[in-house]
């Protein structure tokens, strides 16, 4: 894991990506810092982070698009996978390298609240909280990006897909409140999930009959439930989607709350996507 981590860090800083990332990150944060704190004479730095969240749309793909897709394309994954290093170690090494670059840029922005503290009273708890929240949020996006880069061997595809994924994650709350669920909408949504499960079964077994049977059973259960106990469908789609509402979780940090459940949420979120990444690589070896 150490070898992979070291190489990735070296790559970030020998290929410009690391510098561009840090420069971009610090610049955008500095612009908002100037606008919201310096020019409007406000010491509330924690709101800067809420304003700059959108830059993850570009930053997350930038850090992760190459990580695993390029290994596959250059066939260097053959070297990694035939060396005495386990797949989780490879994934973790790469993930930690990306997070390190993010952490470095985050540390540089630490200078802004320090500047503020010379001229006024800063809310230390809230700023610390928003730092922790912002770090966890960014780490979650990086995990998603890493997973996506393990699926494709094309950097551009990986970047665009990560952009879309981060966009959707940022929009979850908006989408849910707009499409507040009628029961029939939730039924349709459950139907789509059922279909996805059936497709996953097909993908793994390559057996058409089993997959169709699975889907029919699922559909039957859903329809029966719909007529017997319609109430469970109330807001089901929304509830499901809110599982991915990373922004809601982040906001509690920005208010200065160190909400353990949110910390656990982010760590599990990251864990799940790293696990997915390992599975994707493992799966390719078996297919």
């Amino acid at each position: 894991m150490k070898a992979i981590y070291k190489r990735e860090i070296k790559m970030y800083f020998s290929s410009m990506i690391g510098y561009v990332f840090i420069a971009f990150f610090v610049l955008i944060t500095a612009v908002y810092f100037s606008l919201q704190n310096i020019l409007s004479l406000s010491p509330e730095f924690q709101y800067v982070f809420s304003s700059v969240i959108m830059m993850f749309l570009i930053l997350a793909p930038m850090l992760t698009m190459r990580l695993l897709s390029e290994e596959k394309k250059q066939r260097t994954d053959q070297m990694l996978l035939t060396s005495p290093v386990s797949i989780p170690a490879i994934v973790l090494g790469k993930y930690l390298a990306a997070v390190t670059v993010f952490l470095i840029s985050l540390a540089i922005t630490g200078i802004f609240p320090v500047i503020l503290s010379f001229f006024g009273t800063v809310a230390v708890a809230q700023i610390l909280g928003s730092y922790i929240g912002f770090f966890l949020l960014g780490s979650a996006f990086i995990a998603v990006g890493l997973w996506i880069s393990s699926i494709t061997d094309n950097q551009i595809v990986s970047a665009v897909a990560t952009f879309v994924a981060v966009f959707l994650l940022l929009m979850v709350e908006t989408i849910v409140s707009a499409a507040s669920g009628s029961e029939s909408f939730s039924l349709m949504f459950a139907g789509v999930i059922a279909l996805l499960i059936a497709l996953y079964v097909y993908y793994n077994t390559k057996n058409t009959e089993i997959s169709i049977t699975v889907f029919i059973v699922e559909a039957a259960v859903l329809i029966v439930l719909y007529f017997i106990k319609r109430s469970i469908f109330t807001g089901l789609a929304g509830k499901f989607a809110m599982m991915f509402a990373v922004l809601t979780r982040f906001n509690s940090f920005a208010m200065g709350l160190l909400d353990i459940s949110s910390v656990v949420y982010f760590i599990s979120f990251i864990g799940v996507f790293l696990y997915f990444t390992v599975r994707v690589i493992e799966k390719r070896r078996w297919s």
Partner: protein
Amino acid sequence: MIEVKNLVKNYGKYEAVKDISFKVDTGEVVGFLGPNGAGKSTTMNIITGYISASSGEVSIDGFDILKNPKEAKRRIGYLPEIPPLYMDMTVTEYLNFAADLKGVKKSEIKPMLSDIMEKIKITHVSHKVIKNLSKGYRQRVGLAQALVGYPEVLILDEPTVGLDPKQIIEIRDVIKELSKSHTIILSSHILSEVSAVCNRVIIINKGRLVASGTPDRLSESLSQDRFKIKVKGEKDEILKAFKADSAFSLIEESETTEEGTTDLIVEGKAGIDTREAVFDNSVKNGFKLLMIKSERLSLEEVFLQVTENENFTFDDLAEGKTESGAAENADEAEEIEQLLENTEPEKDINEINGEDNEK
């Protein structure tokens, strides 16, 4: 050292490897031979743990590649068909990374790398960025990477493909040097290479192991009691005379290089010494016999015969007769070796491939 048992690999419905089993002992140099798409690379990828077999077992020095991957992989150095190079690293950086990856102790890295670079003769390019290296040097860097950590087993997938003749000879020399201290499996579709470097050949075709043995034994066991003769005189007359003789089961014309002579390939019927029959026939008809030479199959012909013949199995070879005699002759062995060196295997291989594709 390496034990492969009942290896099967399916890609969907396509069977890339069908029940391959073999053993490689410590110190052996084994050549994997087969046309493109025969399953060589797949087999090697499974042995090294890059992909997993659908069923079957691979163990390296007693360590199963699936159950004990760390120990097994530590013993293998692998050079895949396309060397796994990070193009934007320098050679030294890259080899350092390889050493880190393989868990070489910090204090040992430096002497190890300089030793390896010396051996592979890449010391003078050690500070170059890999993407600026020529194909031959990239191949060497790939080979150096496989050597890092001094693994006991080297698995080399077409180590000389795409190199110019001079580079091929150089890489081959390196492999010969390495074979003194390593167990090696190398794949190739260049037969002269295999016969030059390996002490055992495994022929794979369409995912099956079709033959296995030393290069000499393979050609020996497949060759019949067949001779090439050179007779002075007109072709028609000589052919007629030999065809009239009931002692021969096969008479074929062969290309003649000398004017005024006729070359034939003849084979005597069972129980008849072909050489005697040729002599008797010549005397009877007053021909001047200029040459009798045993026609032992070259490895190339063995390869063609084995890969073209659908029903050919390993058993055929195992039963193969080992006739001594003229073939044992040292001069002749040398001649065959020269023949092997001079022929153009590429052409034959392409023909095979063409046929494969048609099927």
